[in-house]
């Protein structure tokens, strides 16, 4: 426990003589607890305040501030997107697996890749867990040459999502929104497709028609290797 942490939020009575320790608890402002268990134990006991709506608390284990709404503790000012993991891509790797990034904490995720380079311009592919079946997707893009030509294609029950981003020699790029990967339901995605090497801007979307919960994923180029860049996984706050 830190210097400000307490195990009890006291309630004083008229005429009570306060000690320095009593005043120090009061002076800490928002009461600080080691964790949610200590917070629960800090209210309602003998000589302690009764927990009521509007009470604030800070937890040391997650470095967050909470307010009690009369029924439950709610995080104060919680970000909409929470960074879960950040993985730096190594040198000349054919695939990168990010493990244990999906959990029951979030239903929806955002995966981004920036920096680094592909050894050759290629599509960025994605696999959920160890699953190699049930992938359906569509890619729609425009060949911006003259005349501009719209093209589209898709994958029907493939072994992988074939285009969730682009591994260019200038930058590895992906911005993937992923729904329900950790629920025992089909997973779905939407992504940008910035295939700069051929002047192909586009979008991709699809689903994985397997009702299994996954905890991780693998990104790989269609050929060649990846070097450098960072894969970040964010969770969308459920509430």
């Amino acid at each position, binding site marked *: 426990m830190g210097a400000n942490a307490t195990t009890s939020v006291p309630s004083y009575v008229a005429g009570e003589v306060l000690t320095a320790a009593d005043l120090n608890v009061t002076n800490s402002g928002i009461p600080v607890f080691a964790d949610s268990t200590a917070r629960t134990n800090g209210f309602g006991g003998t000589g302690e305040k009764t927990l009521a709506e509007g009470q604030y608390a800070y937890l040391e284990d997650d470095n967050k501030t909470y307010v009690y709404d009369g029924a439950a503790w709610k995080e104060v000012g919680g970000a909409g997107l929470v960074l879960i993991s950040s*993985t730096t891509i190594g040198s000349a790797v054919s695939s990168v697996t990010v493990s244990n990034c999906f959990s029951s904490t979030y239903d929806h995720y955002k995966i981004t890749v920036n920096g680094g380079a592909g050894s050759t311009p290629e599509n960025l592919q994605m696999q959920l867990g160890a699953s190699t079946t049930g992938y359906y997707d569509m890619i729609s893009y425009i060949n911006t040459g003259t005349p501009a030509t719209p093209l589209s294609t898709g994958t029907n029950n493939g072994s992988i999502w074939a285009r969730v981003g682009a591994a260019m020699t200038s930058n590895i790029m992906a911005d993937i929104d992923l729904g329900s990967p950790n629920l025992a339901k089909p997973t779905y995605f939407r992504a940008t497709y910035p295939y700069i090497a051929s002047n192909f801007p586009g979008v991709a979307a699809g689903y994985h028609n397997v009702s299994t919960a996954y905890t991780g994923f693998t990104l790989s180029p269609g050929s060649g290797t990846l070097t450098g860049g960072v894969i970040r996984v964010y969770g969308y706050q459920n509430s």
Partner: protein
Amino acid sequence: MSYKIQIDDTIREATSDEAARIEAQRAEAAAQAAALDAKAAALVSARQKLAALGLSEAEVAALLGG
């Protein structure tokens, strides 16, 4: 062929099973890319033939998109 794979912060050589999976997925991606290339080539050919029939660029675009 050997492949280096990364799992979180660890990089190692792919096992034979993992290498086979990588090759299968790459073959699938290559087949899809080839199909898309063929589709693009067919579109270019169709544009040229329609233009030879006297259709304007706007009329071709209305028929084929773009």
